[in-house]
């Protein structure tokens, strides 16, 4: 099991520091409409290099920072951190775990960190794909996206299969 934990703070509706232990085969996230389940999913995707604003349901990266509510003021940055187990050093980083973090500030300044060290987006992408395990958007199926493989044109499906191979 690779996924170990997720920590979110200031990202969308997660104004407060929130940590979830994720070392389980099947994890279910439940709750009422609008409570923040897909926001949690967005935080995971964003930390793991999702750059497509439409996928994150945002118009600008600043939309990802908690914008305040009726009772709380906005905050100045959003951050999320994913910790992976690193069995047999499959990530090539040398530790028992690998921690990937991402931040965005109101100034639009943006940080990427691997094990606390500041890096570029492409370095995080490199570490994720170094395991030889597929990544990018295809292992994530967002709301309403499941039938997409069904409704795709045959040409698009061929392209998808080529990416998988």
């Amino acid at each position: 099991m690779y996924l170990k934990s997720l920590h979110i703070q200031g990202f969308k509706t997660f104004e407060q520091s929130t940590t979830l232990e994720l070392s389980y085969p099947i994890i279910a996230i439940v709750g009422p409409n609008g409570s923040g389940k897909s926001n949690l999913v967005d935080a995971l995707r964003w930390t793991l290099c999702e750059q497509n604003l439409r996928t994150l349901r945002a118009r600008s990266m600043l939309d990802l920072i908690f914008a305040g509510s009726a009772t709380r003021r906005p905050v100045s940055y959003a951050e999320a951190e994913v910790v992976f187990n690193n069995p047999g050093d499959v990530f090539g980083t040398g530790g028992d775990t690998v921690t990937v973090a991402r931040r965005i500030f109101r100034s639009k300044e943006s940080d990427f960190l691997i094990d606390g060290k500041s890096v570029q987006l492409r370095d995080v992408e490199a570490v994720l794909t170094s395991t030889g395990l597929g990544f990018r958007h295809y292992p994530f199926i967002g709301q309403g996206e499941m039938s997409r493989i069904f409704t795709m044109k045959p040409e698009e499906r061929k392209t998808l299969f080529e990416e998988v191979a």
Partner: protein
Amino acid sequence: ASTLFEETFAVIEKAFQENFIKMFDGGEARLVRQENGELTGIDIDVVLPGKRRQPLELLSGGEKVLTAAALQFALFKARPSLFYLLDEVDNALDEDNVHRFARLLREQEDSQFLVVTHNRETMLAADVLYGVTMQESGVSKVVSLRLDSDEVPVHAS
């Protein structure tokens, strides 16, 4: 690279067929190569148990989701990932099919799934349940919930 594609295609098709037959308790499924000298597209061709072969458009909402899931899981098998994230993919399924989908999930070996769901049956397939609530308006809070079926949260529909 072309041989790698052929091998991958064979793995995907075989897994798709097995998943489909398990999901629908029968029927047939195959991938159709569209060629024009070289491969130009990949199409899907399925027959639901007891029914005849028909254009894909005619399938119901739930049938499309299950067929898509059978193929999607075959892609996962061909190119494993660190973990998989499914957000409310079971919304259009009736109770029986939610149960079958949950069973397909549990049968994926060596895979980690994070699923968002409103369905009780899918929750019962999980090893851990996190409830996201908004007690304080506009602010999300996460609580871990026990998995005894009498404690499954009331907002499941």
